């Protein structure tokens, strides 16, 4: 299964990279999202996959449980990622509104004047 996951992670990263290199601002932000998914899945996989029970200690000592640490890390990362993506969406929306364009290449105003 890990092998399949490794491919999926590669796919997520590849799609993320590709989308981030697009000129459309929405695609670009979706790309960032994909990249985040890739990173989360990478942590999840790298720490070891087990089809085990959720890490709830009520089940007694005998049961095999999934590693809770990567779960906690990913949860933190997901939430942070959500905050950042939300901000990024608002920012992207404002920029495209101000620049009257959905084309990332049009955003060159701030770097004019160095001629």
């Amino acid at each position, binding site marked *: 299964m890990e092998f*399949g996951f490794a491919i999926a992670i590669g796919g997520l990263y590849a799609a993320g990279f590709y989308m981030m290199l697009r000129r459309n601002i929405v695609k670009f932000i979706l790309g960032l999202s994909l990249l985040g998914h890739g990173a989360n899945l990478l942590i999840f996989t790298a720490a070891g996959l087990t089809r*085990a029970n959720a890490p709830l200690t009520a089940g007694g000592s005998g049961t095999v449980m999934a590693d809770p640490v990567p779960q906690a890390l990913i949860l933190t990362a997901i939430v942070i990622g959500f905050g950042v993506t939300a901000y990024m969406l608002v920012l992207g929306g404002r920029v495209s509104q101000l620049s009257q364009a959905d084309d990332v290449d049009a955003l060159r105003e701030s770097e004019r004047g160095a001629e």
Partner: protein
Amino acid sequence: MLSLSVGIIFITGLAAPYLLPRLGRAAPWLFSLIPLGILAGLLTHIIGSVSTFPWVESLGLTILFRAEGLSYLFAVLITGIGAVVTLYSGGYFHGDSRAGRWFCFLFLFMGSMLGLVLSDNVFSLFVFWELTSITSFLLIGFDHHRPEARAAALQSLLVTAGGGLSLLAGLVLLALITHTTDLGAMVAAEIPNDSPLLPWVAALILIGAATKSAQIPFQFWLPNAMTAPTPASAFLHSSTMVKAGVFLLFRLQPLFESISWWGPALMLVGGLTALTGAWMAVRQHVLKPLLAWSTVSSLGLMVMLIGAGTPEALFAAAVFILAHALYKAALFLVAGILDHETGERDIRRLGGLRQDMPITAITATLSGLSMAGIPLTAGFVAKESMYETLLHAPAYGWMLLVCAVLAGASFAAVAWSVSVKPFHGSRLPTDRHAHDPGSTMFFGPLMLSGLGIAAGTVPSLLLEPHAAASAPTAHHVPHLAAWHGFNLPLLLSAITLALGGVVIWLRHRKAAGDTSSALNKLGTERLYYRAMDLLDRFSTRTANTVQHGLLRIYLFSVLLGAMAILWPLVYRHAAPLDNLITSWAASGAAETRWHEWALLLTMIMAIGATVHARTRLGAVTALGVVGYVIAVIFVLYGAPDLAMTQFVIETLTVILIALSFSHLPPFRDLSPLWVRARDLLFAVTGGVVMTVLTLVALNARKHESVAAYYMENSYNLAHGKNVVNVILVDFRGIDTLGEITVLAIAALGAFALLRTLPGRKRGETP
């Protein structure tokens, strides 16, 4: 005491703008008492000869002052001429509102210069070396409202500071070779002759010294720097700053003797500089450039003598340094008086001023005699000793002699132009009513030129002791006398004077051509401008190439860089990867259940759909599917908390995207096919890197982890059965504190961004 002396000069400088208006007319006199006092202290040896002050010892940077030998000679020169220039400045800037600033810069410069020559630690020497560059920059650009003053200041700064960096590199290397930063110890240190670094050190230091002392090919900045107010020119360009390079070469000469090219290089550079300076000097008509080019020539002679390298040559150089300082400072000051009182700088329009300005005329004549090298002057003694030395020089003697004679001839011509031409002949009309200046201005130059004559009359008293002390090996020092009888050097002197006369006659006959074109003929200045221009264009192009403004190209470069760094390192481990893959393909594939395959397939299809989507809604939906699949994976692998969070967040994200981009048109294909192909290729490569990295990481899995501790103690110690939640709020609770801060600030930012909409009043709350 030495540190204190330097310190006092600096403090006076900083306090000058404050003190000046409060001291009134007495200020220049009082100010000049400070260098004078230090001079007296040095001469009477009341001020001790060594003084240390620790600064950054861990780098070998100690302020170590030692007033011995050459340092002592220079210290005497700097304080003496400094006192004169200070007094003179009082008259020159009388009533000028910028006088306070002037005295500040002047004293800072004086202190730096004094610190430079007294330093016996290479890094402390460098500190003061750079300080002189900076302070002279401020002095040269003092009249910053004039474009040529600004340009000259910048030029002098860039040339000398650029050379300074070369010097720094050289000194650091030297410290590396000799294992000391003490100048005295360095010179005495045993350096293996075959040290491969030593020639580099010599070259680097030579560049540093050549820039400072205006040697070819860096000679151009000095005449340009004549836009400085005259007191600065007199101080910087006659006696102090430009001699710093000479000073350094003088001190380090013993270190580099073993390098075969060292002496010849110095002689070549010095000789060429001497000739160039001489040639340029006789073509000038304006007072200060005239003196400036002759200074260049003199500096060349000094470097040439150091290159000759014998003790006699070094001694002759020291005598020449003294004599030159005395007459050149006085002449610069005289030039300043002429400029100040008549408003005229071109000697062709000056004449017959001796009736109106008798004291100035006397001062000029005395110094002029010394410069021309007429017997009974310091200049004569210096010239005699130079000729004497060169006659006995071991190598290239006659060539050097020719240089010296030609330079001497030009000095004679210059002396005539500055000290005879303006004062004799018919009185030419001037803009202002010419008269002798106030005592502050004439006192100093008169003293200096008088001293020049006195030194020439009794050289054994006034010149010999100082010069002798400076020669590194004082075992055999030629005796200096006002008159050595009729000998070969005297004949050479006569020839020199005769040649000088010829030059004067020629100059008198024919009004020389345009001086500016002559300036340009030398080429190296053009080279400087071309280099600066090239730098300008190259840097602008770099800036524009690097910062083109296209975000996706930035991202492409960043990712490309990251992958270029990652790939080889991941690849190094890829060798046993075949095994990994085959073993997983065998065992992993069998283990994998059908719904897992289905999930993976769904995810990959959803990823593809996200990339390929034609509409925004399609892309967002596909992305949502990716998120939900990941959530299902979390459920399957024992992470219900994650799954729940992922579900809710995915939903929210979809709502957010729908809300924030409602105003945009549908997707268009903006990039041409080849760009998409390139990006796709790159993205796939990147994905492969991450896949391989994951596989390698899986292979390097841990055997034990901190998780066991959490499992064990979650309920007993932290009262919670859900270990993930306990980690989040307790074991690693501070992560969560940071995380909710991120959320809070993100929301705040989004709120602030959306509040200031175009067409809406600011400050309305949603």
